[in-house]
């Protein structure tokens, strides 16, 4: 029996912690970009439908599974699923409920450390007087660990360790004394900061428009984001994007909700609590997240610029520059609020990611809370350092793809099948309704059994075999080629046609284009400008990297463009995947040892 006797201090604390788990960087950075790219206001329709048929059922599945596990003394996914599924493989499928958290926390805390660092840079008014290009370059320098923006050597690493250490320390204080306290402070502050910036965006109008820019108007940004393009509703990719956003935003398919819910008392409500937390996340995402980045950027830079550049990097490369236009003091305050709200959004989520590991170590190995928390810090640091050292080489993206995208969908599919088909929908429905403070619509029983698992199966299958360019009809007509974003395409590295060796003496162009040879900060750089105007840039740190083409030369894909000692991107992909496989195997091994200990204790 577990010696883990933690519990939540209050119901509001639990809901704020659960909402904090769900509210993350994606609410402010991913949602508006997805909405812009998928039909503006019409994106909201598939988004809300996905919330109803995918999000809410998954929330109930995870809350109910977690609370059920808690009654058995299990607070992490492997043994929660073990007690629901009986067959021995369920606990190994449950490994995803710890693995995904560690792997995501490994790079997520790195982003969190950027926000933390940028709060200080905002206070110090570092960005005052910088041009837009200089602010963007500042970020590039920051994540290039060889450079320092403050004079502190390896600054990005120290900030990463500091933030990971802070997470670990808070986790060591437990649910009530650590996580709940942070949620009670962080969530209200996040909403206040977000509301301030959203109101400022509403009031901005065209007051920030540079001369000659007729479309620099924040209201155009709102219109663009909210203007329905109903024809996009017939596009399956829009529905897939909406369903994907629901995953990320609710933090389902991770195992964090299982863990938090495992500390809910067996007769206490989960139905109303899950709705309160889920809708709070929706409020932050739709009302606040949709009202900051895009409108403010359109207000200063215009609609065309935003359409071309909307993306995650805007938070760090564009927003600090725009805040400087509000004057020294207000700009500094806005910077603190923006990066402060991102920091609170991040830390309330990363604390949730740490909880399953901490609970597992307490439950199975009788570690103290403090020791469990520090082992989380150590494992996450070891898993995360490659993402810091090799951020620009793509290790970060690999973690995000395999753990933060594929892992979520796979685990959600597994848990939905377990809940509705193996454990049984009757038992599951009864568990959701036990102690409920609201009456749940009965329609959700068949939704939980048929609709949610089916949608998850479709999403997973489509992710597995996504055709090139997301063009399904062309794939059926002309033969199936996998897109680089598909799971099979990723495994086959289909986007790398030529430089497929980890180490090589020559580097070959992957695309056609006209060469533009430069030396940027001492690094050999070759840009290949394609006929579409898009440019592919290759840059090497190695001193012996020498171009074998000249500026203006027409290059074909497959032509050699440089000579030297190259470590190709495929090496870093293999490194990242190897790290993730090793992490999964390590946790699965721990689960095996824990299982053996349980068996020995019974004998």
């Amino acid at each position, binding site marked *: *029996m*577990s010696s883990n*006797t933690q*519990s939540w201090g209050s*119901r*509001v604390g639990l*809901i704020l912690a659960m909402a904090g788990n769900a509210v993350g960087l994606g609410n402010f950075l991913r949602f508006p970009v997805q909405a812009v790219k998928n039909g503006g*206001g019409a994106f*909201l329709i598939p988004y809300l439908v996905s919330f109803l048929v995918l999000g809410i059922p998954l929330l109930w599945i995870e809350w109910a599974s977690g609370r059920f596990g*808690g*009654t*058995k*003394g299990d607070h992490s996914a492997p043994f929660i699923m073990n007690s629901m599924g009986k067959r021995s493989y369920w606990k190994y499928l449950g490994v995803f409920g710890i693995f995904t958290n560690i792997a995501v926390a490994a790079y997520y805390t790195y982003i969190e450390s950027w926000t933390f660092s940028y709060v200080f840079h905002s206070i110090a008014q570092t960005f005052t007087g910088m041009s837009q290009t200089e602010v963007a370059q500042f970020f590039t320098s920051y994540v290039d660990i060889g450079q320092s923006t403050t004079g502190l050597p390896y600054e990005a690493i120290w900030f990463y360790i500091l933030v990971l250490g802070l997470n670990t320390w808070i986790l060591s204080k437990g649910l009530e004394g650590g996580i709940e306290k942070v949620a009670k402070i962080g969530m209200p502050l996040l909403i206040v900061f977000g509301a301030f910036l959203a109101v400022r965006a509403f009031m901005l109008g065209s007051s920030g428009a540079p001369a000659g820019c007729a479309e620099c108007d924040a209201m155009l940004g*709102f219109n663009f*984001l*909210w*203007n*329905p393009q109903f024809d996009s509703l017939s596009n399956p990719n829009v529905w897939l994007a909406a369903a994907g956003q629901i995953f990320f935003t609710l933090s389902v398919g991770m195992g964090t909700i299982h863990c938090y819910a495992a*500390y809910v*008392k*067996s*007769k*206490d*409500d989960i139905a*109303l*609590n899950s*709705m*309160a937390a889920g*809708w*709070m996340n*929706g*409020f932050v995402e*739709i*009302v606040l997240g949709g009202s900051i980045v895009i409108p403010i950027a359109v207000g200063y830079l215009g609609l065309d610029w935003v359409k071309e550049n909307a993306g995650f990097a805007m938070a760090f490369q564009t927003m600090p520059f725009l805040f400087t236009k509000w004057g020294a003091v207000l700009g500094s305050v806005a910077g603190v609020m923006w990066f402060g709200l991102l920091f609170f959004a991040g830390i309330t989520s990363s604390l949730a990611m740490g909880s399953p590991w901490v609970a597992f170590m307490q439950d199975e190995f009788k570690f103290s809370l403090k020791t469990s928390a520090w082992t989380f810090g150590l494992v996450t640091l070891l898993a995360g350092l490659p993402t810091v050292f090799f951020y620009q080489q793509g290790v970060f993206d690999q973690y995000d793809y395999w753990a933060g995208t594929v892992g979520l969908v796979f685990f959600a599919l597994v848990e939905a099948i377990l809940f509705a088909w193996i454990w049984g929908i009757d038992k599951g429905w009864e568990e959701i309704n036990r*102690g409920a*403070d*609201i009456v749940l619509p009965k329609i959700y029983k068949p939704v939980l059994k048929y609709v949610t698992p089916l949608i998850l199966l479709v999403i997973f299958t489509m992710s597995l075999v996504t055709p090139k360019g997301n063009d399904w009809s062309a794939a059926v007509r002309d033969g199936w080629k996998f897109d680089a974003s598909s799971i099979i395409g990723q495994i086959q590295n289909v986007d790398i046609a030529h430089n497929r060796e980890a180490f090589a003496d020559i580097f070959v162009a992957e695309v056609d284009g006209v060469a533009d040879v430069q030396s940027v900060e001492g690094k050999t750089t070759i840009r290949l400008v394609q006929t579409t105007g898009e440019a592919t840039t290759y840059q090497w740190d190695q001193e012996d990297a020498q171009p074998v083409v000249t500026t203006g030369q027409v290059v074909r894909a497959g032509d050699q463009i440089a000579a030297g000692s190259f470590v190709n991107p495929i090496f870093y992909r293999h490194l990242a995947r190897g790290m993730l496989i090793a992490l999964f195997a390590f946790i699965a091994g721990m689960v095996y040892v824990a299982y053996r200990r349980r068996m020995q204790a019974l004998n």
Partner: protein
Amino acid sequence: MMLVTEILVTAVTVYFFVKVLRTPPKIEPDSFTENDSE
């Protein structure tokens, strides 16, 4: 569209949160230890 959605989402959020605040706690004694014994 924007105002309707924002008002709707805000209203639902406030409704659930207020319902949480106004629902009295369950009176029967409960504890983690009891959960374990079930």
